[in-house]
């Protein structure tokens, strides 16, 4: 995998029996350093966690957020509010109201992402990365794989409509997308979760690059934490 910011890519990270979130921090620091605008949709961790890791990687996320280079969507807080607040206390404005309302979709979340990264005309302002950590949380909270797939489809159309795929050699440079997406889906081999497996397959069809992170087949090792495969 090239260690540079590539436009038009939909990178799908999957992990099995290990934690692939280190790649989220890697891409976050890589694209911030590359001068890209980054929108981090955080469903698994708080901003403090990403900031603490970012400081170790030499990327102060607090400054990036203040400058406007980093747009942080606190999905963790929104999901918690849906379960702790009463309906009349602003659940109607929550972008994750699909967690309680089975008839709702993730359209409000998509609208929020779009307002964070697009201009008033609804187009991207320069190279932009959408980083989603992670999609399996939505499925765990009861959102169907179809709704998550629809949400990611619209994100893909927004970020990389003319994405590089099997026709990489065919893409005209002027048609290149301004954006890119990196998302994480858990794919633990020891967990039988049909909905999550369906979600992974949907994302695999959307993605242009699949990074599969897994533990070593020989077992735990102190020095080598795992292996990754690129598809």
């Amino acid at each position, binding site marked *: 995998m090239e260690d540079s910011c590539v436009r038009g890519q939909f990178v799908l990270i999957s992990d099995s029996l290990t934690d692939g979130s280190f790649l989220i921090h890697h891409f976050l620091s890589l694209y911030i350093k590359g001068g890209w605008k980054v929108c981090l949709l955080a469903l698994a961790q708080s901003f403090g966690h990403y900031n603490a890791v970012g400081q170790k990687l030499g990327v102060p996320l607090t400054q990036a957020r203040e400058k406007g280079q980093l747009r942080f969507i606190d999905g963790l807080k929104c999901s918690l509010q849906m379960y702790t607040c009463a309906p009349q206390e602003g659940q109607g404005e929550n972008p994750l109201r699909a967690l309680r309302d089975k008839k709702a979709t993730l359209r409000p979340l998509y609208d929020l992402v779009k307002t964070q990264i697009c201009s008033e005309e609804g187009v991207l302002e320069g190279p932009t990365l959408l980083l989603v950590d992670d999609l399996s949380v939505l499925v765990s909270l009861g959102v169907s794989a179809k709704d998550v797939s629809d949400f990611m489809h619209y994100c893909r159309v927004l970020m990389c409509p003319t994405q590089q795929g099997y*026709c990489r050699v065919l893409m005209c440079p002027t048609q290149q997308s301004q954006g890119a997406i990196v998302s994480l889906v858990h794919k633990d081999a020891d967990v039988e979760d049909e909905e999550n497996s369906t979600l992974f397959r949907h994302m695999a069809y959307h993605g242009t690059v699949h990074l599969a992170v897994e533990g070593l087949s020989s077992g735990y090792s102190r020095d080598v934490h795992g292996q990754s495969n690129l598809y």
Partner: protein
Amino acid sequence: MLQQVLEGTEASSLVVIEDCVDHDGRPVFHCFCSQLAKRCESVHLFHLENPAGVFLEGANISKVQSHDGFSDPLQWEEQNRDPSSDRIDLASALDFLGHLKRTPVKTSPVAVVIDSLTPFLQNYPGYVICRALQRLLRARLESDGIEVSQVVAGFHGDLHDDSTAAALRHMATTWVQLQEGAESPTQGGAGFHGNCEVLHRRKSGKVIRQAEVYHISPQWSLTSRVQKAPVRPVAHVEQEAQVDPTANLTFNLRLTDTEKEARSRVVLPYMHHHRKKAPNKPAANPGGQIFYQPDDVDDFDEEDPDDDLDF
């Protein structure tokens, strides 16, 4: 067979290309788009999973009419709607034929390419899709103003249940199941290749099922041939593996002919025989005796009476 269906020398009204995550069907789909644009007057492309441009490279795009289900299939975007292009709305009733009738270009017959059926199957029941496809295939120039010569549809086999696949397979005249994925193109653009299984039904009723190997050139032309079964020299290997276990030993395990004859005469103690016993000879086991009398179906082996030896 795949190549014949692609080139039109083998007639097929509904072609379904089944792929999965490991075996990408888009290169084969691309070949169909390219070939249909050459030999048909008009091609209607229903694209929902990829932008139209992905499949139109190398094709005569003047013959292709796009129906956009990729940009805004669920009507989430309020702005930037181009009224001139035909859009697919997955929230409204499904009608492939209606989309064809709405296009200004009126040529017939037309070919229809659908990428893919999965978004439709996620939003409509399976029978609705089948009914819409049936209506498309039965369209007639006199009654509907348009006639469809061929429909080619993509189908992700690992996203749907077996009943949906079975229903579509029943409708399809050609079912192409990709079994080994298309390889990624090399820097030199060597194309793609893979294996597939083709199930083809002719109008005469004959059903042909064969495993094939296909190759796609960088110019998106596909060639296929029947996959030959690998030659297995199994018998020759088995003959070589039989080694005499009694050879090369420091002790003798073989029997002479007289020893074999003497062994065959040995009466086993538990075998029931009808010879008279001596009246004054006491019973070997006064508590009871066990006799074994084999039936006709018993395969009694004197060398392995318990049938627990693994030679």
